[in-house]
């Protein structure tokens, strides 16, 4: 018994060390958000601020109109997540289990889009397409763009995970009279909860922090801005030099929803016992 405890203790210490290294810059960020702008730039080395400027947070909240923009961000993110969850897992399942004409070709095309990213240049043609479809002026246009662009990462994750689910489950359901789609909807989906959680988290991260595209889509209607666009805007709310203090406090506040989401999702990461279903 003693041997096992020692191992656990060592592991625990290791984890504490690693986590501290990770925590360190975060703590610096947190404390820095209370500093005055000048202090941030000149006394970066001192972790604890001279004075706790709580008004950084109040100013950031007001200037960046946090309430409205947070709602915008939540709305956009929720829709995007819902859309991507459905579309990606559907595609992942179809590739993993389905047989249809051109499957290999389409899959290769999808994979190609994964690494064929030209980065910022793609913005212009994307705007043009959005304009052509008349959706370039609202956040829903952004949602459409995101949901219907091939999110190969998610599809790939979904497909690989589904690949590892024994086909016998499918066959059992098929015997019971389920159609292809129903197998997906009723059987597979509940089994891939960890992937759903992962896709949820990934999409949340990508969408919540997305700056350029939401900026473009909300240019003509600033009241529809997302939170990240507003927070970055905080940087330029200063007079000539940037207002780092406001941007830091704004960023701290905008992380909160993500952390909440993560905490609530974490039980899906440890589902563990799902494979027992086959014995039933």
């Amino acid at each position: 018994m003693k041997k096992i405890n020692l191992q656990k203790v060592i592991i625990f210490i290791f984890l504490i060390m690693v986590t501290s290294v990770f925590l360190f810059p975060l703590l610096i960020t947190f404390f820095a958000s209370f500093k005055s702008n000048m202090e941030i730039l000149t006394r970066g080395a001192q972790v604890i601020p001279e004075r706790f400027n709580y008004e950084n947070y109040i100013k950031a909240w007001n200037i960046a109109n946090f309430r409205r923009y947070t709602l915008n961000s939540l709305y956009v993110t929720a829709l995007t997540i819902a859309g991507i969850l459905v579309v990606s897992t559907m595609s992942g399942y179809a590739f993993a289990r389905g047989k249809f004409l051109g499957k290999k070709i389409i899959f290769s095309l999808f994979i190609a889009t994964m690494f064929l990213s030209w980065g910022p240049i793609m913005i212009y043609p994307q705007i043009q397409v959005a304009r052509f479809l008349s959706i370039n002026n609202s956040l829903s246009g952004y949602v459409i763009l995101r949901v219907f662009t091939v999110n190969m990462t998610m599809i790939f994750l979904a497909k690989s995970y589904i690949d590892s689910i024994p086909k016998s489950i499918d066959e059992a359901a098929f015997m019971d009279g389920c159609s292809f789609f129903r197998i997906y909807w009723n059987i597979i989906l509940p089994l891939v909860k960890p992937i759903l959680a992962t896709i949820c988290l990934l999409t949340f991260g990508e969408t919540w922090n997305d700056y350029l595209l939401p900026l473009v889509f909300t240019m003509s209607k600033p009241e529809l801005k997302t939170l990240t666009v507003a927070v970055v805007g905080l940087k330029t709310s200063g007079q000539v030099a940037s207002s780092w203090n406001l941007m830091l406090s704004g960023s701290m506040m905008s992380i909160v929803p993500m952390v909440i989401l993560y905490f609530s999702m974490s039980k899906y990461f440890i589902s563990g016992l799902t494979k027992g279903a086959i014995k039933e």
Partner: protein
Amino acid sequence: MKKIMCITLIVFLLPVLGIFAGGSQEGQSDDKTVVNVWTRNRHDKDLMVRQVEKFNQNEGKEKGIEIDYQIYGDDFIDIYTIAFESGNGPDIMNLEESISAGVNKGVIQPLTSFDNEGWVENFPFDVDINNVTAYQGEVYSIPQFAFTMRMVYNKDLFEAVGLDPEKPPRTYEDIVEYAKVITDKSGGKKFGVALPFKWGEGFWTWAGTYTVGGGFGRREFDYAEGKFDFSPLKPYTEMIVQLKKDKSLFPGAEGLDNDTARAQFAEGNVGMMFAVSWDVAVFNDQFPVKIDMGITEVPVPEETGFKYKSELVSQGEWWLGSDIPDEKKKAVWEVYKWLNSDGIVTMKYEAAKNIPVNPTIAKNAKAPDVMGFAEFSDVTNNKVYPVVPSVRVEGDTFDVIFYNAVAGEYSVDEAVERANKAYNAALEQAINEGALEISDYRIQDYKPTLAE
């Protein structure tokens, strides 16, 4: 099958629901025309926001116009470029690039396309500056303000190390000497000069090529020859190399951006630094200087002395966006006139936000009493230089080339050679392709104005 239909329907319906949600936030302005004004001016933000509100409450209400004043940051060019691409360009804005670039991009339109009742012609000074505010015969913008460059120094620190605070550096050699004294005597806590290299091109222009005029009468373009010649930058770069050797530069210069440099100067850790007239606002409001700040002319090389009037950088201020729908034109023009009105310009001057180009403004207004403004706005020894062509260079731009010389990759002479070669090649190509007329830029009998 039914389930698939259901799902597909929902997936396609989501955006429709979204359109409703997004749409419900529309429908603000009823019978008011909203004029979008985009600016990158942050230093006069408080003043302008107040004025815009006043306008909207009074004149705006009468005429049915509402100004939507938006302030942007460093990536302003990209933002308005993307905006115009996506059909969302502003009605009035500042142009952050050369006029030829703006016209070629298709983001601005000439003032003459509006029925301006001779308003442009009646300005009390010359607004028709070729290739700055006018392009191919059309006036696109009215110049309002000018920027001057100076050197600021820490009087307290000078005194502390035994230098005379009333004797600021006048030559590059002075800078090197003083910097060494300051650094040596401050035990690693304070340094002679802060050079924010991370500012990149900004540094090598605002603190570089724009400042060498006092000694050479020109920047990197030889007007008489009609060719690029970066030799005025040579003594300046050699000074930097020496400062680096002496270790009197603020540490981490490569990663030092202008904000941090200015903050450190305000804190008192820096002896000398280059500054532009917009820094008056920075050193008064944003990073209030904790020290006694001295201001002097930007030093020149010993060998040339203060021969000529140094540069006064002036650009057009407000420009008309290219995408203004006909119904809006009248309203936009009203706002444009308002932005350029003497009232607004005078207010900005009196608040020490800008140095006006219009001589009548300064005459009729109250000189502002803000620390440092007088020195920056004294333009007796400053003059607007003729325009320099902007070309598309292959490979490194001159800021990178000269930076590499500082880093020791090659000599300063070689940097000058390389820069000349690259820029003149680009110039030739532009001329051959017909993108540029050399006659617009070449002034065969150019004589720089002597200093007073």
